[in-house]
């Protein structure tokens, strides 16, 4: 079976459109990153410090009632979120100290919902010093893995390809930040893990395309850059899509069936896989074309 027959799509010719789209995505992503750095985004308590609890009630409970109950008992700053299956409630208190807040929440619910017993399914309390350390470690990890990838690409490909692959990788990471920022999803350690995983994985598609471009460049020294690149992308298009599709299927099953704990993590992976495929065709390759053309023009004017 073949998904796509022989295609002749002018990918490189569409670069103006794709660059505009990618620029918008990247700008939103950068805003997201800045908000994260400022601590203004929806930060998980692993970075901000605080308390998060997941409670399972025996009967359905409305968020409004829960909020009133907490307010009455002196817990004023809490984010509440409902998990649909199984009367579950997430309570998040950013920046709160370890120990007290969790007891206060439990006491409040025990008092106000005496006929609706609950169990604490999980509770996470993180002091501010740990949050700071984690933020610092995460930053180092992100910088290190980016550096590692860039160095590897720089070693394997020449400079122009390296620039294309690196920009595409950064683009993919920014797109994930943009999605999470726009949807106000929580930025936590698992999200960063997903971003770094995609940073490594999205290169697969880029490498597949680049390898083919290099191969064709060696074979065909006279053709126009534009055509060689387009032909190469079209030649490997089906494998670019199929490799992404298999990982997409796996990530989608995590997203739909993996449970609430890794729901957002799987969502981040899905976004990353899709954007990673798009960027290897529409971002990485056009950038290399532009750089190659510029180098050729320089050579021509020098001669």
């Amino acid at each position, binding site marked *: 079976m073949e998904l796509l027959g022989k295609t002749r799509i002018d990918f490189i010719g569409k670069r103006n459109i794709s660059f505009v789209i990618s620029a918008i995505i990247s700008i939103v992503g950068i805003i997201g990153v800045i908000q994260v750095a400022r601590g203004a985004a929806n930060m998980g308590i692993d970075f901000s410090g605080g308390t998060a609890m997941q409670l399972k009630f025996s009967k359905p409970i409305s968020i409004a009632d829960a909020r009133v109950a907490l307010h009455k008992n002196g817990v004023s700053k809490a984010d509440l979120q409902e998990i649909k299956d199984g009367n579950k409630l997430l309570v998040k208190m950013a920046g709160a100290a370890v120990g007290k807040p969790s007891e206060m929440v439990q006491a409040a619910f025990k008092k106000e919902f005496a006929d609706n017993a609950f169990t604490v399914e999980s509770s*996470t309390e993180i002091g501010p010093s740990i949050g700071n350390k984690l933020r610092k470690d995460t930053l180092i990890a992100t910088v290190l893995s980016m550096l590692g990838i860039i160095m*590897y690409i720089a070693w394997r490909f020449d400079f122009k390809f390296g620039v294309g692959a690196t920009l595409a990788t950064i683009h993919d990471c920014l797109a994930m930040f943009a999605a999470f920022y726009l949807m106000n999803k929580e930025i936590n*350690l698992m999200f960063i893990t997903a971003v770094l995983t995609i940073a490594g994985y999205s290169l697969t598609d880029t*490498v597949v395309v680049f390898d083919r471009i290099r191969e064709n460049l060696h074979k065909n020294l006279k053709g126009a850059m534009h055509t060689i690149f387009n032909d190469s992308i079209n030649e490997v298009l089906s494998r670019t899509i199929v490799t992404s599709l298999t990982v997409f299927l796996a990530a989608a099953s995590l997203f739909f069936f*993996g449970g609430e*704990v890794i729901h957002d993590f799987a969502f981040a*992976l899905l976004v990353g896989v899709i954007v990673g495929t798009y960027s290897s065709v529409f971002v990485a390759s056009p950038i290399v074309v532009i750089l190659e053309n510029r180098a050729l023009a320089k050579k021509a004017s020098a001669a």
Partner: protein
Amino acid sequence: MPKETGWRISLIAVFVVLSFLYLTPTLASKLPSWWGNLLPKDKIHLGLDLQGGTHLVMEVDTQKAIEGSLDLVATDLEDTLNSKNLRFKRIARNGFDKVSLVLYEKGTADAVQKLIKDKYPTYEQSPTFDEGGFVALTLRVNEKDAQDRKDKAVQQALETIRNRIDQFGVSEPTIQREGINHIVVQLPGIKDPQRAIELIGRTARLDFKMVREDISPASGSIPEDAELLKEKMVDSATGAVTEIPIVVQKKSMITGDLLTDAQVRIDSQFNQPYVAIEFNSLGAKLFDQVTAANVGKRFAIVLDNNIHSAPVIRERISGGSAQISGNFTEKTAADLAIVLRAGALPAPVKIIQNVTVGPSLGQDSINKGLYAGLIGVLLVVGFMAVYYKLSGMIANLGMILNIVYLMGALAALGATLTLPGIAAIVLLVGMSVDSNVIIFERIREELKLGKSPKAALDAGYDKAFLTIMDSHITTLITAAVLFQFGTGPVKGFAVSLSLGVIINLFTSLIGTKVTFDLFLHKGKVKKMSI
């Protein structure tokens, strides 16, 4: 069959056998008796997020340990000076790193200076100075000693906490020091985390202090050698808590480090639990002396600066045993006995991270993770079979091999499987067929060029090799960084991912190739199912 193929098949088979061998302890509920010592016993551990449990990070207030040792120095100097008939006005800890002494005359000051130099040679002594007509001098702990003391305090705290957890009874706890003053405790599968946390985090400093009946707690002016502490009384009927202030002597008569044992007993008369304690010989002697000298007076049993009870000494108590009674449930009495036996923490600890996962959520996560994994496998297997037909099934075989090897490797390393770790395995299901997709697409191209199946196969594997290496190495780079910096669940993800990626290189480049070679080696096959 070509020689090379036979060799490779044996290698694959050996790895399969090894994987299952390593997996046996994980899969079998009980190992058979003939399993013996030579066969592997390590198994895949479940992370706290999967089996439920508590992960604590505690910070030892090491400054308090220094202050504590300076207090001891001050007390010791008081005793020494008293015994040598050197008169002084005041000796006390001053701030966080000094002890200051105030003396009446220059003459005694000289003698004291000499004495200190002999007794505490490592301390830095200031020259004497005048303080409101008295002669004063200060003693300062030097930086290196302070560091040593802090280090020792964390080490001691670790030992004490380990002791307490052992006595509390938790299976397979992890207690580790992290950084300068942090202690990480993991308690898998614990039923009552709140109780365990209270037990672990308690300083449990026990002091016996004489009650100063001569000073009213309401008076407001409390002499320097006394302090105001509170006794908490809980009304067992209403649960109401009342606090009674009591003035006690600042100096302890006896402290908890002189105990050798503490046990819970039940009072036969009132059916009330109490804690029976045993002193060591020095403690027994002191206790004997103190009770003998103070019959009819009250002394306070002080736990972490709260008065537990303040009974009247009815008679001299010799023999070194005593009891702490009042307001206990069986659990609180048992916990007190544990902390007294394990000893006090050298400094207070603060819990700065507490992640607790209930067992039901953990089981739920396992079920959902496995379910998602199964669906992921089915989707990928189905897709590959439809898209690449028989060749797709060979890729699927490689994927299954990949999972078996990965589980075997996790077991062999005694690695911890977390929910993100399961997610990584599910993700790997998708990734592991990728290499074969790249190879297959190349083979299709070569076939279109008119090559024979055998030639197309070899060209496909050869030309795809570098591409596959590249894509694996970039994933491996991030996985390695995540492993280095990640904690808990993230680390689990990194372990599964990096092992999986390495194994995948083997299965996709050697495992699937061998299967093809078996089918195609004679070169007679005209058509390839791809």
